[in-house]
């Protein structure tokens, strides 16, 4: 088991190796790949949210000079089979239809055709010459409406999983968890609170739009350059959609300008490969911001109902959660993780959780930072706040009273190993930002956050150069500073300075398989592979030293980056450093490299406690975040600055979702705010400094105690904001976002009551 100990490299804050190139513009992102004779692809998108495609005719576009190819659903194999690996899941068939519609367009912006032309401008112009005949159908745009009996069906062939005999339904799946006897629990309660909470659709909002370039060699093998969170998954998904073998596709990841889960799926790559195949030229495709909003991401809008009963002393006797999530046009809303996370911080005897995965005529949901948890935990953590008010208890004390610990059976099944929720709550209680009374007229809110974190498959290879420098080769795209963390763990394990280690992200043919950078798994799982590969190097170095000294390898220790004879081995030699061994490796047996591949288990759940003070302008409804404090268990912070960065970035994304971010649709299902001007992510001046406090409860499943830290930070801020605004107003607004018009309308309605 990992325990807190003194480290040399881990816990320091060196500059990330990719940082300077990114801020000077030297780094290459998805749209930066250019090849000789390259042409440009653009996608024609459905102007209707729901329509049958009666015909597609590209002949007028093809007549235009400079237009090389037009493709549509008919150019792709039908009946693709299999499941998508990686975080989001789903079927290859749904993926294939999402990136190029077949007989029906299922949301406004759904791809129906694509064109390749000499320039991007020509390609866009050619789109206007593709003739598509639609039979427009009524769209279903709201989760509650979609669940009603007799609702318009997004897909006439969709049945509820496990209930196929009941006829078609927009409800693709139902998830249920139950323990104990909730009704008996409510009967025992002194106080019962109930609430109804809605959270809007939100986009991941990465700065870099999706982009890729594809080319085929003379054997017909494709090479794809793209910005992605997981190039091995791009390879398998692209192969699945095109009906090719993964061996026919090589994927090279660029630097990535943000993903937050949204770049764990694909939209353009199979289209670019197909267009390249038809034209014999490299094809580049870059989305506009508008396309990103209309056709990628987002995460689900949700409707949650929570009921919690408790004794006067705060002991929760029962809780129930009902939640319906919008999947978009294909099944796969993150309602499963929403159900599993809703009660995760608590030790509950009696509960029932029900979740519904519901189709609507909107873009297919993609993973977004802790997929599903912000929505359901917004509901539960708001209800906890109401409960604390009703029984007159400090909201932290209420949570401490019901807090899960090591040994608690999690609501989603497993028994918790050591976890940090109690320590986070205790840290919040004594934090100076909490012990300082809130200013007159302001509101304060607190909430807990949680994410499972995952392990999954990773590989790493560590290579020793002849001057003692170390190359780490792994396959996890770096979206949050993971290369710095890999270098720190390698430096720690090998006992060498950070500066001599360089980490690289290899393409699908240069390194072993790695699942996506997602699920907060990279520093944990790929980090574990790097540590094991370094241990491989140490073992080999010990052998080389032993051979040099003419002793057995098991008589050699590796300490502080040097091979030394074990205590008691009677030999008078100087220690051999990693550089010494590297310098002579050509004579002692050849190049030295270490490798590891694994399917990591025991990711270690991540808990957080956040709180904020807010001011509400009672005349305009504007909410200002005055201060925000994020406290989170990181297991062990390998690079504390990047852990704090994750906590701050997640807090800001959560606050944006709580305050102003939402998809605004007209009655026809057309998104009206498909741009950053009116899809309002916070700007820097909207936010206070996000204060952070890292708690370290080491994860026993990792040699340095790492837990994932990337996703948990987005979860709590939604309820923190709701709770703080409710505190400021003296009444609750249950639905998000807390945008000025909504808040002012609620104030006016409350005054009228």
């Amino acid at each position: 088991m990992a325990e807190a100990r003194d480290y040399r490299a881990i816990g320091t804050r060196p500059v990330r190796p990719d940082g300077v190139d990114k801020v000077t513009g030297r780094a290459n992102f998805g749209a930066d790949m250019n090849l000789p004779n390259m042409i440009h692809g653009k996608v024609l998108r459905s102007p209707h949210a729901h329509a049958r495609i009666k015909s597609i005719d590209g002949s007028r576009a093809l007549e235009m000079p400079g237009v090389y190819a037009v493709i549509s659903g008919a150019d792709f194999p039908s009946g693709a089979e299999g499941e998508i690996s990686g975080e989001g899941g789903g079927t290859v068939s749904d993926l294939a239809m999402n990136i190029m519609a077949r007989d029906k367009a299922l949301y406004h912006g759904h791809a129906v055709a694509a064109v390749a032309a000499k320039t991007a401008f020509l390609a866009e112009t050619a789109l206007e010459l593709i003739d598509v005949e639609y039979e427009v159908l009524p769209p279903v745009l709201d989760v509650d409406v979609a669940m009603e009996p007799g609702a318009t069906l997004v897909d006439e062939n969709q049945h509820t999983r496990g209930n196929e005999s009941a006829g078609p339904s927009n409800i693709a799946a139902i998830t249920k968890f139950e323990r104990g006897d909730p009704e008996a629990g409510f009967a025992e309660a002194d106080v019962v609170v109930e609430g109804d909470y809605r959270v809007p659709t939100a986009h991941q909002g990465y700065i870099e739009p999706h982009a890729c370039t594809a080319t085929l060699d003379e054997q017909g093998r494709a090479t794809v350059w793209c910005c992605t969170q997981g190039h091995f998954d791009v390879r398998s998904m692209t192969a699945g959609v095109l009906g090719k073998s993964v061996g026919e596709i090589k994927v090279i990841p660029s630097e990535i300008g943000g993903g937050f889960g949204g770049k764990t799926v694909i939209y353009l790559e199979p289209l670019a490969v197909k267009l390249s195949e038809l034209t014999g030229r490299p094809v580049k495709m870059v989305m506009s911001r508008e396309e990103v909003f209309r056709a990628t991401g987002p995460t689900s809008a949700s409707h949650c109902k929570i009921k919690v009963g408790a004794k006067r002393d705060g002991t929760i006797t029962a809780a129930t959660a009902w939640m319906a999530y919008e999947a978009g046009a294909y099944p796969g809303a993150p309602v499963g993780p929403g159900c599993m996370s809703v009660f995760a911080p608590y030790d509950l005897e009696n509960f029932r959780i029900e979740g519904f995965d519901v189709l609507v005529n909107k873009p297919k949901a993609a993973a977004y930072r802790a997929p599903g948890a912000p929505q359901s935990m917004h509901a539960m953590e708001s209800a906890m706040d109401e409960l604390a008010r009703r029984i007159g208890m400090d909201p932290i004390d209420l949570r401490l009273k019901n807090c899960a610990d090591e040994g608690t059976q999690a609501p989603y099944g497993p028994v918790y190993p050591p976890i940090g929720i109690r320590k986070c709550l205790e840290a919040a209680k004594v934090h100076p930002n909490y012990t300082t009374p809130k200013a007159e007229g302001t509101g304060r809110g607190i909430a807990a956050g949680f994410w499972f974190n995952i392990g999954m498959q990773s590989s790493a290879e560590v290579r020793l150069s002849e001057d003692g420098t170390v190359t780490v080769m792994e396959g996890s795209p770096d979206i949050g500073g993971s290369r710095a963390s890999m270098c720190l763990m390698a430096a720690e394990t090998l006992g060498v300075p950070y500066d001599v280690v360089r980490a690289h992200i290899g393409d699908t043919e240069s390194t072993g398989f790695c699942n996506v950078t997602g699920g907060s798994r990279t520093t944990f799982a790929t980090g574990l592979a790097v540590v094991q590969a370094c241990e491989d190097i140490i073992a080999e170095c010990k052998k080389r030293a032993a051979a040099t000294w003419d002793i057995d390898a098991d008589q050699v220790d590796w300490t502080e980056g040097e091979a030394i004879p074990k205590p008691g081995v009677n030999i008078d030699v100087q220690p051999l450093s990693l550089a010494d061994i590297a310098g002579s490796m050509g004579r002692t047996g050849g190049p030295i490299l270490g490798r590891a591949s694994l399917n990591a288990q025991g990711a270690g759940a991540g808990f957080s406690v956040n709180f904020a003070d807010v001011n509400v302008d009672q005349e305009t409804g504007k909410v200002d975040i005055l201060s925000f404090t994020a406290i989170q268990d990181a297991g062990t912070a390998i690079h504390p600055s990047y852990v704090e960065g994750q906590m701050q970035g997640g807090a800001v994304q959560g606050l944006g979702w709580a305050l102003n971010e939402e998809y605004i649709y007209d009655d026809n299902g057309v998104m009206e705010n498909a741009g950053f001007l009116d899809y309002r992510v916070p700007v820097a001046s909207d936010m206070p400094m996000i204060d952070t406090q890292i708690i370290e409860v080491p994860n026993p499943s990792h040699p340095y105690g790492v837990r994932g830290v990337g996703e948990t930070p987005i979860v709590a801020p939604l309820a923190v904001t709701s709770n703080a605004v409710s505190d400021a107003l003296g009444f609750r607004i249950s639905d998000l976002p807390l945008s000025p018009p909504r808040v002012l309308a609620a104030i006016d309605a409350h005054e009228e009551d």
Partner: protein
Amino acid sequence: MEAYAYARPTTLDEAVSLLAAHAKEGRRTQLLAGGTDVLVQMRSVDREPRTLVDVKHIADTNRLDISSDPVFIGSAIPSAILNENEELKSLFPGLIEAADLIGSTQIQGRATIGGNLCNSSPAGDTIPAIIAASGVCVIAGSGGTRRVACEDFLTGVGTNVLEADELLVGLEFPRPQGRTADGYLRFIPRTEMDIAVAGAGVALTLDDDGTCTAARVAIGAVAPTALLVPAAADALIGTKVDDEALSAAGAACTAASSPITDKRGTIEYRNKVVAVLCRRAGANARDRALAR
């Protein structure tokens, strides 16, 4: 296919002749000052080729007369120059706070209040402030120079009185006398990088005992164009600009508004907030005037 063209006249005559010649040939032109609206529109909403006529290289459009009466601000003067001018800030604190709301520091190095006016967006931030400060548009064209009060310059969403052979040379403002001051506020859901949901500019003159003797109130983003609201001014004149008078002025602003519901706000919301902004901007103008 017609291509984009770029012209850089160095005199008003040259600019007017160029515009007139294009108009005669039925060729489209677009005036270019800082370009912070034009360049964005060229890449998104309106990509039809046209001749861009850059007004930044003409002496008259670059004239800035701050010490004179009227004060003159050339249409090519970037707002950074205005925002950093202490005398202007002291004379027209409301106009300058409006100009300073538009764009980041970098954008303000290019953006002009003349361009903001000619773009004629209902939500243009400087427009209510210009109207409140009694701004007059100086327009050059084939027929010579004409002057149009700013509130009469605008004709609709994105449209104004400029003919195809005309350009805005600059804005004249009567030099504020005695206890005269202005204020401008707009509402956006964020702190910056956003477009006004509603805006209000108020200019006031107070006598020695603090009674309002003259007032102009203008509102933005709540009608197809920014509007002068005489009823709001009437509610202030003859009062000490106290809460009651400000509330009445705010109510007059709401009455004059005809907003729409869109992605930036609802009718109800805009009607309420324009009154709040009028009250708050009016209080700012009053306090500034009292301090003179």
